[in-house]
């Protein structure tokens, strides 16, 4: 009797191990293939780590939440309108990417979203004029600072604020430190990460593209990622 049970346990154990090994081999193979062939992007997708719920407002003053990231691929950036250099470059490159996708892969429907680090100054109205200048397809997203801070964290992005005192010395404020009362009057800039993210039709973060952004290489990677999804 004991012998039968032992054999049964052994069979079950071997089968389970076998399936696990097979799963990881197959799973690993896909990702190994992607890792080898992705030129400029990093595969971020983790099925065990879902993007938490967020609630923001788009530049048409409509609610923008997780549902808006579903059904289509989304190319998502974090920017702010008082950015003199990095954000305009990023938005220009993403616009070039948009036109490349339209030309070479018109059936690939993609949304373009630009979320602001700086909702205090970047209201929906201001964002609309700003982002649509770079590309009519861009959708600016603003909202409550806490919601913005949360989604920035969930994407693995980072920002801090920089101000200058009377002596010209820089003061760095982390995102959870409040801005002084004269901040808007005196001006402040934002130091930030500059990744472009690819969100899959399930509304999950799929891949990330660090700067510098090369639209042609990004397109090749996006096509590969979409193909292997």
């Amino acid at each position, binding site marked *: 009797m004991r012998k039968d049970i032992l054999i049964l346990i052994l069979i079950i154990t071997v089968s389970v191990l076998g399936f696990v090994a097979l799963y990881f081999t197959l799973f690993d193979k896909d990702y190994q293939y992607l890792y080898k062939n992705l030129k400029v992007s990093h595969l971020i997708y983790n099925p065990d780590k879902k993007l938490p719920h967020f609630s923001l407002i788009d530049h048409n003053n409509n609610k923008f939440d997780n549902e808006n990231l579903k059904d289509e691929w989304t190319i998502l950036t974090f920017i702010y309108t008082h950015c*003199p*250099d990095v954000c*305009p470059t990023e938005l220009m490159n993403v616009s070039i990417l948009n036109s490349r996708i339209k030309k070479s892969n018109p059936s690939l429907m993609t949304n373009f979203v630009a979320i602001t680090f700086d909702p205090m100054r970047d209201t929906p109205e201001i964002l609309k*004029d*700003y982002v649509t200048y770079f590309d009519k397809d861009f959708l600016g997203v603003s909202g409550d600072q806490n919601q913005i801070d949360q989604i920035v964290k969930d994407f693995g992005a*980072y920002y*801090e604020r920089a101000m200058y005192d009377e002596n010209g010395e820089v003061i760095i404020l982390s995102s959870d430190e409040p801005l002084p009362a004269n901040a808007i009057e005196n*001006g402040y800039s934002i130091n930030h*990460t500059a990744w472009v993210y690819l969100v899959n039709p399930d509304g999950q973060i799929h891949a990330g593209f660090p700067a510098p952004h090369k639209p042609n290489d990004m397109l090749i990677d996006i096509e590969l990622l979409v193909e292997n999804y």
Partner: protein
Amino acid sequence: MKYIMITKNIAIFVLFFITNAVLAGNHISVTESWIRTAPPNAPMLGGFMNIHNSSDKEIKLMTVNATGFKRIELHRTINSDGTMKMMRQNYIPIPAHGLTKLEPGSWHIMFIGPDIVPKSGDMVMINLAFDDGSKQIVHAFVRKSKMMSHDHSSTQMSND
């Protein structure tokens, strides 16, 4: 006779002074200047150019002036472990017998608070002042990106 001597000395002194000022200005030349186009509600614009220094000493760009902006600052974009930092600079150095490129992702001039955001093709007259006393007037055209083919900017020296 005495007055002629004095006048002569004054003339030589003035000539020497003007020559020095002109020669100091001669050490700097600016090429490929441009201002990047921006949205109609952009709070600031970026200015870029190549500054060449033919002298034996480092020269610093100290201030920039142009009408139609609230404030103009010098900045540098630095990638600090993946965080892009836009840091205000007291000056932009141009090495001896060298060149400093002001370009996106690097050194740049920040034109803050435009009265009206200039459009593509507009020209902005920029006054550059250096630590050796020299000045330059640069005509920068507003463009979407840096043109590689030929240089549309012109430079002029001023003895102000």
